[in-house]
């Protein structure tokens, strides 16, 4: 059975935030004004979090690229009153934008705070409008949105593979963040398929998952810094 997942090597991450930018342009995420961002209304399905480590002057920053964890036991799904957030058979946690009533219960239930709300309707400057991605729906005001592992790319990859009469390969389906990462810190694939790199990487001794003790069973794994 296919279980899509991600392994992020923190030792390779340089904090360049290319994944953030790639995600925003792939998924039609509009930028907001600086004062709205200051209020906590900026949307970043993939976000590079920075944690200062050590005492001055020996300080460093550690980076955690943080997408949706696509938990196998997602707390957001249980609380949704209208089944607008769901987990598909291959483990991708998605959101049905036209059904969501905007109660933000799922956002509160998510321990990783990866669910974003559309406080206003989306707006693009005229110069950016032509660069929007026609494969990804634009979210209206008042609904929740989240990282989808770029599942529109999966649909396309699947159709291409079928047209060419072959199996889906690892490189056929990669989310924008994994594709763009210049240091190959973000690796994406089928956790249950031994030929995919993630299946091997998730057995690495450096592996950990965020807040594993909560029992949410995230499908995003991290490889700790080398010491």
């Amino acid at each position, binding site marked *: 059975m296919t279980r899509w997942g991600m392994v992020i090597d923190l030792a390779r991450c340089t904090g360049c935030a290319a994944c953030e930018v790639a995600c925003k342009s792939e998924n039609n995420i509009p930028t907001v004004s600086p004062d709205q961002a200051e*209020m*906590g209304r900026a949307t970043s399905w993939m976000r590079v979090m920075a944690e200062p480590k050590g005492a001055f002057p020996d300080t460093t920053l550690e980076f955690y690229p943080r997408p949706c964890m696509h938990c196998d036991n997602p707390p957001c799904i249980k609380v949704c009153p*209208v089944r607008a957030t769901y987990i598909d058979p291959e483990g991708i946690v998605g959101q049905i934008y036209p059904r969501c009533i905007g109660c933000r*219960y799922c956002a509160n239930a998510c321990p990783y705070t990866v669910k974003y709300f559309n406080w206003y309707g989306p707006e693009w400057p005229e110069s950016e409008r032509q660069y929007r991605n026609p494969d990804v729906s634009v979210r209206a*005001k008042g609904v929740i949105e989240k990282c989808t592992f770029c599942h529109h790319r999966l649909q396309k990859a699947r159709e291409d593979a079928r047209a060419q009469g072959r199996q889906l390969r690892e490189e056929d389906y990669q989310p924008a963040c994994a594709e763009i990462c210049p240091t190959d810190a973000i690796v994406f694939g089928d956790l249950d398929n031994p030929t995919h790199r993630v299946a091997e990487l998730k057995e690495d001794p450096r592996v950990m998952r965020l807040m594993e003790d909560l029992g949410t069973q995230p499908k995003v794994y991290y490889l700790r810094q080398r010491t």
Partner: protein
Amino acid sequence: MHRDVAEKLAKLPPDEQVLLRPLVDTSRWFYVGAAVCGAITLWGIIAYVLQVRYGLGRTGLNRPEYWGIYIICFVFFIGISHAGTLISAILRISKAEWRRSITRSAELITVLVIGFGAIQPVIDLGRPDRVLNVLFHAQPLSPLLWDVVSIGLYFFSCTIYLYLPLLPDLAVIRDSGIKAPRLYRFLAAGYRDTPAQRLQLERAIGVLSIIVIPIAVSVHTVIGWIFAMTLRPMWHSTIFGPYFVMGAIYSGIAAILVAMAVLRRVYRLEGYFKEVHFDYLGRLLLIFSLLWFYFTFAEYLTAFYGGEPGEMRTFWAKLTGRFAVPFWAMVAGCFVIPLALMSRQATRTPVGTSIAGIAVVIGMWLERYNIVVPTSVNPRWEIEGVGHYLPSWIELSIMAATFSGFILLYMIATKFVPIVSIWEIKEGRASVQEVAERVAHYSERVA
């Protein structure tokens, strides 16, 4: 007041004369009060229209402070609604004679306030136009859905529980002809107060007063569970169900006390809301202030003793950090002030209980603030940092409108139904002998 209405009123027995007077005699101050409340309500409606037009961005909400004033008010108003049911149902079942003059005003608070509480989560929705998806795509595992069911049931049963004991009084108004004859002919639904009808009515009220208690308990338990079912620090707690029910009853008693003090003054009901009523309800308030302390202490001690880092950030934010002012104001309003005033006979007066009641109402609002906001701004993952929340004028206007809208409807209701149950008062006067015998029986020597 019109002369023939005055004549009709003068022909009625003394209880009816006093209690039906507000229905036909309206002072100028009533219109002033109604106009002020109406204006504030209208202002709030305009604010809501703006919010729908431009989006929830017009509020102070953000990530991670997804819930704010609306959810606080939701919990608060549904809490107040526990006044009527619990007080009147429990006192009816336990045959407390002093309940007779206070049940009506309490039940009326319940029914009116449930509506104002229940619209709060709808105001909070990003897509109020899709609210019916809750029925079309119902997901029974969501505590929000449990809420829809239990609040719906509660509203339905409380409305019947208000209406049934109104029947004999509506029949009196209809027969006296002092006001809107066709309206009261319709409302009284052919009730003639024959002994057979009265017996049936009392049976129905008896059954209902038992049914509404578990429903009322379920309502606030489920509201507590909305928070408790998430994994958020200081929300994910088993005490929340019972804690919310206790707090709801507490704020409900406080609200009744304030309403009674106001009604007693404006409608000259000193003969019905006597010192003894304030004294007894004051004692009940005292018990609940102690219960409140017990529950709060148990909740915070458990969190503190466990010392889990995620919980401790919220814990210290409340006790000594950014939320210290609302936290300690809550302790003063819910515990120190009511305890100090209600533990002395000398201050269990109408004035003393009103002050304690207002303190508790404010304290309980703050309690809900202290539950919703500090946890929201302190996400479990520390790197997220700490959020912030400053309600916008839109949120504050809608909150003001909710209060004024409730007061306005309550004022109007006192113009259509007697705020003290006439037939229950009369029944009480007639059954003094029977009650005396019952009490004597308690202490009878058994040979």
